[in-house]
């Protein structure tokens, strides 16, 4: 008993010494901790309304518990099930087409030897990242306009009738995913470029002496060398899989494209903010978070087991 007490005292003393020695580092960490506490942890208190018949007048604490009723409502709702299906479809398609693009871009940049061309190309592909979502949506709407849009103008040259891209459900996903890639692929490639920069140059020199071509070096050295970074980024991406960029969807979608465009977040927005059904929206949000948590845990475990790389 006294041993345990002495141990815990010793641990506290060490912790105190540690803080005393490293307090500057903790000061640097503080803003991030505050941000997390205020914007991510404190709102968790409100999650309980997913299990309550919440009324804005009664407040969170006074609202009665109703168990899983909201979840039953959600899973009985065609709209929610459609949003869930769309979320998965858009997420999976973005992952399949959007995730490899920054890697391909980084590999391509790495092969450019002319420094001026390389820097210009990099600047051009990084730029869309800094444009606000609303402007991006404006550009997309303009580009795909049936009257003056560049896409339809080009199709006109080929003798194809104008297509009303943004009101046709079958075109929504390609346009949304394509514009997402256009906006983010360049900027996301920076991480992979940094990983490529960290590859030991003598690996390439050794391969050159062994007779490897540039293509072989890319496949056999660069890609395997940046694989740990790719896996980490993939795990992070899977964690955010259900966080479809709903701002762009909100600006781009319309009732005629709900069939393919409505996702969980836009559903939450419509139910919670526009329809004032905060409890139902909270249930949908909680479901979203639980699925994301399961996904990231699974991805991390699989990666740890098979590739020795993991986020934690």
């Amino acid at each position: 008993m006294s041993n345990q007490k002495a141990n815990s005292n010793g641990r506290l003393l060490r912790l105190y010494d540690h803080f005393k020695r490293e307090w500057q580092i903790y000061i640097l960490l503080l803003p991030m901790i505050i941000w997390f506490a205020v914007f991510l942890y404190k709102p968790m208190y409100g999650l309980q309304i997913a299990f309550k018949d919440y009324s804005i007048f009664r407040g969170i604490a006074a609202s009665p518990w109703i168990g899983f009723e909201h979840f039953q409502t959600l899973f009985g709702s065609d709209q929610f099930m459609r949003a869930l299906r769309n979320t998965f479809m858009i997420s999976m398609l973005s992952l399949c087409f959007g995730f490899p693009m920054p890697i391909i871009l980084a590999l391509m940049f790495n092969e450019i030897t002319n420094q001026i061309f390389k820097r210009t190309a990099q600047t051009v592909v990084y730029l869309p990242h800094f444009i606000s979502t609303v402007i991006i949506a404006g550009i997309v709407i303009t580009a795909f306009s049936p009257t003056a849009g560049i896409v339809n103008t080009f199709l006109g040259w080929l003798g194809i009738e104008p297509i009303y891209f943004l009101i046709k459900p079958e075109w929504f996903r390609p346009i949304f995913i394509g514009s997402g890639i256009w906006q983010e692929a360049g900027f996301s490639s920076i991480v992979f470029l940094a990983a490529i920069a960290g590859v030991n140059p003598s690996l390439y020199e050794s391969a050159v002496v062994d007779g490897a071509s540039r293509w072989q070096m890319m496949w056999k050295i660069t890609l395997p060398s940046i694989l740990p970074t790719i896996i980490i980024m993939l795990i992070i991406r899977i964690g955010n899989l259900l966080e479809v960029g709903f701002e762009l969807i909100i600006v781009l979608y319309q009732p005629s494209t709900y069939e393919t465009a409505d996702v969980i977040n836009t559903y939450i927005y419509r139910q919670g903010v526009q329809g004032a059904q905060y409890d139902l929206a909270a249930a949908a949000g909680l479901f979203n978070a639980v699925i994301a948590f399961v996904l990231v845990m699974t991805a991390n475990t699989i990666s740890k087991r098979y590739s020795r790389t993991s986020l934690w």
Partner: protein
Amino acid sequence: MSGVDLTNIVKKYGSFQVVHGIDLMVAEKEFVVLVGPSGCGKSTTLRMIAGLEEITDGDLTIDGRRMNRIAPKDRDVAMVFQNYALYPHLNVADNMAFGLRIRKMPKAEIKTTIDDVAAILGLTDYLDRRPADLSGGQRQRVAMGRAIVRHPKVFLFDEPLSNLDAKLRTQMRAEIKRLHKRLGVTSIYVTHDQVEAMTLADRIVVMNDGRIEQIGTPMELFNNPVNTFVAGFLGSPPMNQVKGTLTHTGVKVGNTEIKIDGASATQVGRQVVVGLRPEHVTLSVKENTSAIPIVLDLVEPLGSEALLHGRFEGNEVVFKAETNGDIGHLSGVTEIHVASSLVKLFDGETGQALNLGS
């Protein structure tokens, strides 16, 4: 003939010249070591031979064929790098097979080759391991194995042992030497470690500031350095160099006269640098020796020998003395003796070796 010839090789980066026209002929099966301080151009020269650096001027021939514009893969050379350059995602067998697969060697042949080389290098039990799971010495052996499996005409070694600890370095040095004897492949080896150079080389090339200072066998360079740079670079500890003035019978350093062979009246008064190898002294008077007074300040025991650190006429000097199992008698040393035939002289201005006898 798998010799390597360098004729007036020059390397410039823009207007900055790092190699100033070097000439070197490496014979077939010879083990040549390029040695010199950091930045002397030895690695650049090796990389030019490998084809990793373009040759600005001059001619490089391997096996009688001009190689200046030939791609590295077609030069039939294999290189061992300082940091091993092992592919971290591949196991030992795949690392060794990399070059063979690139060259599309049949799988069965690759396996046989790797098994043979792994047996030579003692890597048979480690073929499934990744580089991260190997010790420094094992990694170095894999790097050598990767070079050996290619059966190249020339091996190029770029400071391959500098990342190893002292004990492992000695062990690997012996392994490299045995391997060279066994395989008999022309080898060019770059190092800044003069002990490696002395122990491994058939011939040593001492480089300084992008130029070759001297080429010769280890003992030629040790006994007859052409200038003060070579004299100071080879030997451990290096040759003591003190300023002096020639007299009728020898050379005067401060108030001490040291007898030399070949002293003549014509050279009296000439300023010289006197070179005294730490190993070339005795504690007792012998025939034709001169006494050198020394103010001893430290005795470093090395086992069978000890290093005597002290001052001679205001100059810091280090000499070696036998301990005979005890260093007690060395702390009282006030003078040492050097034979006249072992005193080296260099010109006081140019640093070039003087041979007064000729």
